[in-house]
């Protein structure tokens, strides 16, 4: 009886002490010291899979270079927990968030001055080092920059080179029609053409869809009309923009050809990306959409040596927009010519003829060449989904900005690249990135990204708020990829049925999306 009382009392005291101690803060990760006079920059970092080594090294390097600010970070894998206290001025102590997307810019500091600065030792401003098309996705509707990317990567269709060689496919598909032909050929040889993963957030196909939509509608319409929710007359928001049969419909028609239950590995709609990537690397599967992180993520479970990265095929129905190219065969030839020039294998003069070009004996207009070239050189990225920002109410705005200037300096960027083995949408101010210790896959993926001219992502900061906060999605959140290859025939939809369903969802939810942003 006495022991019971002692145990209970001890237990109570321990628990109450611990909980009182805990009231003072979470502790643990903070490395507070005052060697810089107590001025610190606290970073909240979303560890989405890139690890913490690069950031650790960067913080140490920055702290060693100057004595005004001490930078440290807390890491968490829970993306939404990183920004749980933004924008609560009274309780938020974070000075720099390195998180996912946070559309609310109400209390973010502008980063224009960071972009216009030149880091010590650099020869260009940070703005000049960044890819211009990527910066277009970072600029907010008011023309200012409130966030910049710190991670993510490019996405493309990864393919198994060995299986392609075995089947005799010498060239990666250049158009979506050709992609369907390649799937057929793989299938005939007992190889599963495609796999993907699916979860409640979607699938990697979502990114390629954006490229195809932009290819068909043009980047100008994609950015300034569709995702600005602005119709031709300038009305915004406009439901007509969302329900118009545009590039999204063409995407459905194209994907209907190769996202089929015959071509797609069974189980793709219900498994996570790690499981499907493991199968992709170890089984006879032809292609999978994936990103720059594949090699890192799958270390130890399968070699990426036999895998290559293809440029995103061009949507075959782009011929609707062309005047001199009206069939897929010619479109493929045109794309080959464009690739040859881009890769330096041919001179452009070989194809020039008068005001236009000649490919495979056919006259191609300059306008058509430019449209297809622009389409061919688009790459899907998710950089805008991993963004950093500084709360405007932080007491260390200046310090956070100094750190960002270091982060994006050549010295800081090299630390990033050496650890992660892929690049951000930016270049060094001088020289090239050292890729000597990268593997073949990493180099190929980087080449696809670096050679592209336009980064495509729907997560643009200039998106109309109906997308950012309203809940609107281009396909109304409908997972049509799963429905196209559903093993259940009654779940399956054609592209036209999917489009009608999507329009119905948009019509039904539009009012709610508007209500969410009032």
């Amino acid at each position, binding site marked *: 009886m006495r022991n019971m009382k002692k145990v*209970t009392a001890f*237990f109570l005291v321990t628990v109450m002490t*611990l909980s009182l101690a805990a009231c003072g803060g*979470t502790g643990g990760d903070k490395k507070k010291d005052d060697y810089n006079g107590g001025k610190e920059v606290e970073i909240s970092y979303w560890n989405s899979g890139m690890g913490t080594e690069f950031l650790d090294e960067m913080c140490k390097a920055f702290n060693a270079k100057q004595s005004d600010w001490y930078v440290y970070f807390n890491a*968490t894998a829970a993306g939404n*927990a990183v920004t749980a206290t933004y924008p609560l001025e009274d309780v938020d102590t974070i000075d720099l968030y390195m998180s996912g997307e946070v559309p609310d810019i109400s209390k973010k500091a502008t980063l224009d001055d960071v972009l216009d600065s030149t880091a010590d030792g650099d020869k260009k401003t940070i703005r000049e080092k960044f890819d211009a098309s990527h910066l277009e996705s970072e600029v907010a509707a008011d023309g200012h920059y409130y966030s910049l990317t710190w991670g993510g990567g490019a996405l493309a269709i990864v393919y198994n080179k060995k299986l392609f060689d075995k089947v005799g496919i010498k060239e990666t598909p250049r158009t979506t029609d050709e992609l369907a032909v390649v799937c057929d050929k793989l299938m005939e040889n007992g190889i599963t053409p495609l796999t993907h993963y699916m979860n409640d957030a979607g699938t990697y196909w979502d990114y390629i869809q954006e490229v195809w939509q932009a290819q068909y509608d043009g980047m100008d319409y994609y950015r300034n009309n569709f995702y600005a929710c602005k119709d031709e007359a300038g009305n915004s928001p406009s439901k007509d923009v969302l329900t118009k049969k545009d590039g999204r419909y063409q995407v459905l028609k194209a994907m209907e050809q190769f996202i089929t239950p015959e071509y797609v590995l069974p189980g793709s709609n219900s498994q996570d990306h790690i499981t499907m*990537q493991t199968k992709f690397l*170890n089984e006879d599967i032809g292609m999978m959409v994936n990103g720059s992180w594949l090699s890192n993520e799958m270390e130890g479970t399968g070699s990426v040596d036999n895998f290559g990265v293809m440029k995103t095929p061009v949507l075959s129905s782009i011929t609707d927009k062309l005047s001199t190219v009206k069939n897929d065969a010619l479109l493929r030839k045109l794309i080959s010519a464009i690739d040859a020039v881009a890769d330096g294998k041919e001179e452009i003069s070989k194809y020039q003829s008068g005001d236009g070009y000649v490919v495979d004996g056919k006259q191609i207009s300059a306008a058509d060449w430019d449209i297809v070239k622009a389409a061919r050189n688009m790459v899907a990225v998710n950089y805008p989904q991993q963004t950093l920002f500084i709360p405007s109410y932080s007491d260390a705005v200046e310090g956070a900005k100094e750190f960002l200037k270091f982060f994006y300096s050549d010295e800081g960027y090299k630390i990033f690249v050496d650890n992660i083995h892929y690049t951000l949408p930016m270049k060094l101010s001088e020289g090239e990135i050292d890729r000597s210790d990268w593997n073949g896959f990493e180099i190929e993926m980087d080449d696809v990204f670096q050679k592209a001219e336009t980064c495509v992502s729907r997560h643009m900061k200039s998106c109309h708020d109906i997308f950012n906060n309203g809940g609107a999605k281009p396909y109304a959140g409908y997972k049509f990829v799963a429905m196209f290859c559903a093993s259940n025939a009654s779940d399956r939809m054609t592209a036209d049925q999917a489009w009608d369903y999507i329009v119905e969802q948009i019509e039904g939810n539009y009012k709610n999306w508007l209500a969410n942003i009032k």
Partner: protein
Amino acid sequence: MSKPKLRMPKSFRRKSKGEIALHIFVSFIFFLVAASYVYVFLWAVVAGTKTHTEIVINPFSLPQEWHWEHFLDVFSLLEVNGKNFWDMLFNSIYFSVGAVGLQHIVTMSFAYCCTKYKFPGSEWPYVIILIMLTLPLYGSGGASYRIYKALGMVDSYSHILSALSGFSMNFLYYRACFKSMSWSYAEAAMMDGADDFVIYGKVMMPMAKPIFGALFLTGWLGIWNNYESALIYLPNIPTLPVGIYQFNTEMVYRARLDILFAACVIISIPAIVLFIAFNRVITTNVSLGGIKG
């Protein structure tokens, strides 16, 4: 030499043949269900000894090589939000033992006070709790989250303070227990000069030990296993179930299903051991039947 007579199991005595057949049939059904539970557990054990690739490619085969070291690797490799296995174990123990212990001590004291002492409002908690149990309220999750956040109890060890609640089903158990206790023990202690604190601490509380123990263990099992509220309120202070969930979803950017399933086995062991040791305490001391008002 005559054959020894087959002795029927004690439980079969006085049962008709039909009932014996029924019991055997029921036992067979129970066997299938219990076997499925055991199979699932053993599958996780075997999966923990495979490589990640083997689990994905051949989930139901035996491993080519048994990697028992994975069960030791769990302690160093299971990491979420910078917290390793031991951190998560501490968090699980802190919130399960701490929260349940606090809750039961507070509830027990509250029930004792309302049962044994008459003061204005002493009957109200009982009525309120009956109403709370029988008239459900939904949809307060958002409001609750905002309150916890405003009080700084999200992602904080102080979240344990939310356990200081006396308005729960446990109040009814303790109330029934104290109602059945004679006040003469307290009167005897009073004659010896004990005040109410001493009476409660040295006389009444020890007599409630059996029910406390049973309810504590039952409550602990529930909180130990809880992931739903921990995922919302403690994402950065992961307990073991939250750690497993986050390792599987947000943190499987590295391919270690082998570690994941080995961890599932490891973290189940404490609860299994405790339950086997105390299952009689739980099942014989908790009764909801015939609670007389």
